[in-house]
């Protein structure tokens, strides 16, 4: 175990090392982020002005679908798994992940799954065009033939997610260094622990729902066909039973990342550690009983609407605890604003905006107005872009010096931040207004009255896209050289990962450290 990585490209194919696998996850996720970003820019280019200019409506639908699928399953989820791979063993003092070969398998399924998913763009009848939520019967009776490939791609990426999650749970339960009790674990480890549980609980349900689709399409069953006694609404229930916990799968690890970064740059310990743990667990629990708030307008009994409305609003309580704790951690701290901190502070503010618009949507009677408008698009992009994406970016800047031993270029990092910050607000803030005044989602053309908001959004989107090129450039430059990072990298950061050299040796903690 003492030696370094193997030579040649087979190092990456055959590796069992959590750092190698973490890097592959992160690079894969960034590639998917750019691909999904290109799809988004096609959408924004078409929506720059009213009328049909660039793409046919059919291709537009494929773009909205593929953008969502690639970003959710290809960019955000693998990025968090990549960070988990890199950081969890180092944070708990483990020599590697608990099941290293399965770890590599979890990763290598993904490129195949997404090759299959992306290849549908070139198939007869085009790529999936029914939205990333693939509601039946759009995704069954009226779907293009490529839906079969989509279904199997979802199956194998689900297998990848489940194996990855099992690995993370086994690592956290079994590989903690002596003295690293559960309530001493860094919050990133805690949030991932709970996320992994969510993944194992809901990815099989996703597999179940696509299996029902497969049988409806190819074997004559009528799960989602009312003529046979099934119900298209059944699809929505099963899908959102997966889909809502999925939303938290994409945000809980983000909570962990900013909970690591904010104390470092506020130079104060995290306020309310144990309440953070309990809040995370409460959010995870509640995520299983709120799914129908995505379907208020589908025709549920009033009792159902009310129950799901109140449960959903309850989530604001643990989320509020978290935001309170982050703000209190910063309160009277000796704050500095290096790039990771900028992204984290922006996370707290903008994620809270996304949370508030979520509360608005949670109100069932109001949701009848907002449903399927750009207000919903604005809401979930505010939680996903400055939420998930910003936290991942913050995490990369925060830990990159530990990974490659060099400091990133701070000026370029800050430029990246401000470009992205302005770009995303320009893109998504106007969508609130367009949505409130009635602009529907997933349409390639729109009424003249929405023209101004859409033009601003499109400009912002291209700015945001350009910012990511800067990010790529900065990361590559940092890997290739730059000022040497110290072992601690930052000023008195907390955590075992800062006790090992920078760059972190290929194998860390072959003997576990003693945690006091």
């Amino acid at each position: 175990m003492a030696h370094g990585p193997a030579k040649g490209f087979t190092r990456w194919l055959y590796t069992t090392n959590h750092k190698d696998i973490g890097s592959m996850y992160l690079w894969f996720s960034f590639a998917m982020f750019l691909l999904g970003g290109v799809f988004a820019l096609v959408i924004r280019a078409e929506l720059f002005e009213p009328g049909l200019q660039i793409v046919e409506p059919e291709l537009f639908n494929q773009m909205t679908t593929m953008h969502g699928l690639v970003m959710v399953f290809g960019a955000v989820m693998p990025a968090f798994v990549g960070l988990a791979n890199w950081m969890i063993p180092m944070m708990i003092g483990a020599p590697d992940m608990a099941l290293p070969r399965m770890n590599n398998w979890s990763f290598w399924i993904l490129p195949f799954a997404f090759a299959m998913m992306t290849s549908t763009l070139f198939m007869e009848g085009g790529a999936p065009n029914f939205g990333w939520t693939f509601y039946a019967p759009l995704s069954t009776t009226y779907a293009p033939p490529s839906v079969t490939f989509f279904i199997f791609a979802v199956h194998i990426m689900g297998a990848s997610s489940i194996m990855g999650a099992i690995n993370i749970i086994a690592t956290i339960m079994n590989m903690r260094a002596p003295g690293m009790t559960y309530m001493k674990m860094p919050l990133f480890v805690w949030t991932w622990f709970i996320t992994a549980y969510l993944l194992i609980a809901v990815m099989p349900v996703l597999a179940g729902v696509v299996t029902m689709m497969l049988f409806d399409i190819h074997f004559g069953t009528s799960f989602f066909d009312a003529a046979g006694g099934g119900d298209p609404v059944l699809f929505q229930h099963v899908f959102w039973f997966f889909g809502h916990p999925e939303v938290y799968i994409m945000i809980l690890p983000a909570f962990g990342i900013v909970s690591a970064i904010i104390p470092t740059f506020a130079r104060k310990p995290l306020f309310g550690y144990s309440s953070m743990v309990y809040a995370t667990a409460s959010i995870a629990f509640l995520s299983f009983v709120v799914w129908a708030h995505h379907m208020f307008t589908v025709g549920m009994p009033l009792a159902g609407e009310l129950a799901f409305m109140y449960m959903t609003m309850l989530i604001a309580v643990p989320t509020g605890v978290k935001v309170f704790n982050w703000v209190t951690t910063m309160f009277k701290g000796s704050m500095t604003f290096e790039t990771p901190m900028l992204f984290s502070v922006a996370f707290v503010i903008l994620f809270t905006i996304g949370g508030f618009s979520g509360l608005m949507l949670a109100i069932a009677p109001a949701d009848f107005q907002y449903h399927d408008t750009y207000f919903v698009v604005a809401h979930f992009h505010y939680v996903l872009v400055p939420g998930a994406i910003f936290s991942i970016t913050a995490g990369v800047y925060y830990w990159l010096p530990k990974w490659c031993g060099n400091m990133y270029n701070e000026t370029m990092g800050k430029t990246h931040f401000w470009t992205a910050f302005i770009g995303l607000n320009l893109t998504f803030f106007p969508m609130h207004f367009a949505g409130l005044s009635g602009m529907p989602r997933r349409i390639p053309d729109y009424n003249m009255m929405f023209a101004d908001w859409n033009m601003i959004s499109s400009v912002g989107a291209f700015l945001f896209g350009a910012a990511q090129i800067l990010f790529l450039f900065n990361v590559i430059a940092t890997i290739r050289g730059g000022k040497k990072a110290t072992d601690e990298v930052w000023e008195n950061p907390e955590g075992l990962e800062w006790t090992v050299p920078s760059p972190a040796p290929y194998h860390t903690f072959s003997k576990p450290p003693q945690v006091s």
Partner: protein
Amino acid sequence: MSSNQDNAVEHEEYYVPEQSKLPIFASIGLFLTVWGAANWLNGDANGPMYFFAGSLMFAFVLWNWFSIVISENIQGLNSPQLKKSYVIGMAWFIFSEVMFFAAFFGALFYVRSLAGPWLAGEGEQGLGNDLIWPGYEHEWPVMTTPDMAANGDSATMRGPEQNMSNPGLANWLGWLPFWNTAILLTSSVTCHIAHGALKKDNRSQFNLWLGLTVLLGIAFIILQIEEYVHAYNEMGLTLESGIYGATFFLLTGFHGAHVTLGTFMLLVMLLRSVLKGHFKSDDHFGFESASWYWHFVDVVWVGLFLYVYVFG
């Protein structure tokens, strides 16, 4: 291993395998399998070829993977801590399987208790009855699909001509699901007895009871096939029989697939014991995980028996 003797008291070496070719080839095998399956379903003539090539490759990789893991354990590379990782892994894998079945049970409950009655006019959603399916009456099992209710003989969504539901307690002795329940419950007991024998290091008893478990598993599968043949040929109950056929065949079918896999796992364990003398009284997680899996499919069956058959 020996260089770490001084440290061994508080820490044993956790075995991290060197590079492994297994994962990438497993991924290629899995990809070819699903790529072939999708092409096959979409009517591409090359689909079956990719599918079978991929499945073969995948099976070959799994064979190697398991044999490597077994030989590592025999070589003594697996510390108690590493063994615990496998235990945790299997436990959570079974939990994921539970959630897979939960999706289908959820679909059954939803259609049966909510969507169907609403369509027939119950509750505040009852408007649908007049507007969508005038005169539709819900019953479970759905013998008359809405399509039949609305279009009569010209309906394309046929209901099942007969269903698999409880024929009444007096007739249980001639009712196949009852016997399947008896077989599967018995097999869980025999599997448990085999486990007890292994813990007492009684090899011949272990082989005997495990062999019996495998036979009961095979008997269950045969009866299940018989039930399907009967359903298709004599009862007019098929996958196309509306929502009842869909839930019936997917729930029992996925369960049957899991029983088949579980029987295969137990058979492999039996062969390992008989041919190779594997397993020790205090080190037999390979067998134990297969037995966990077996008890899990048994529990799923109890749920099926109750909600698909008895109260079906």
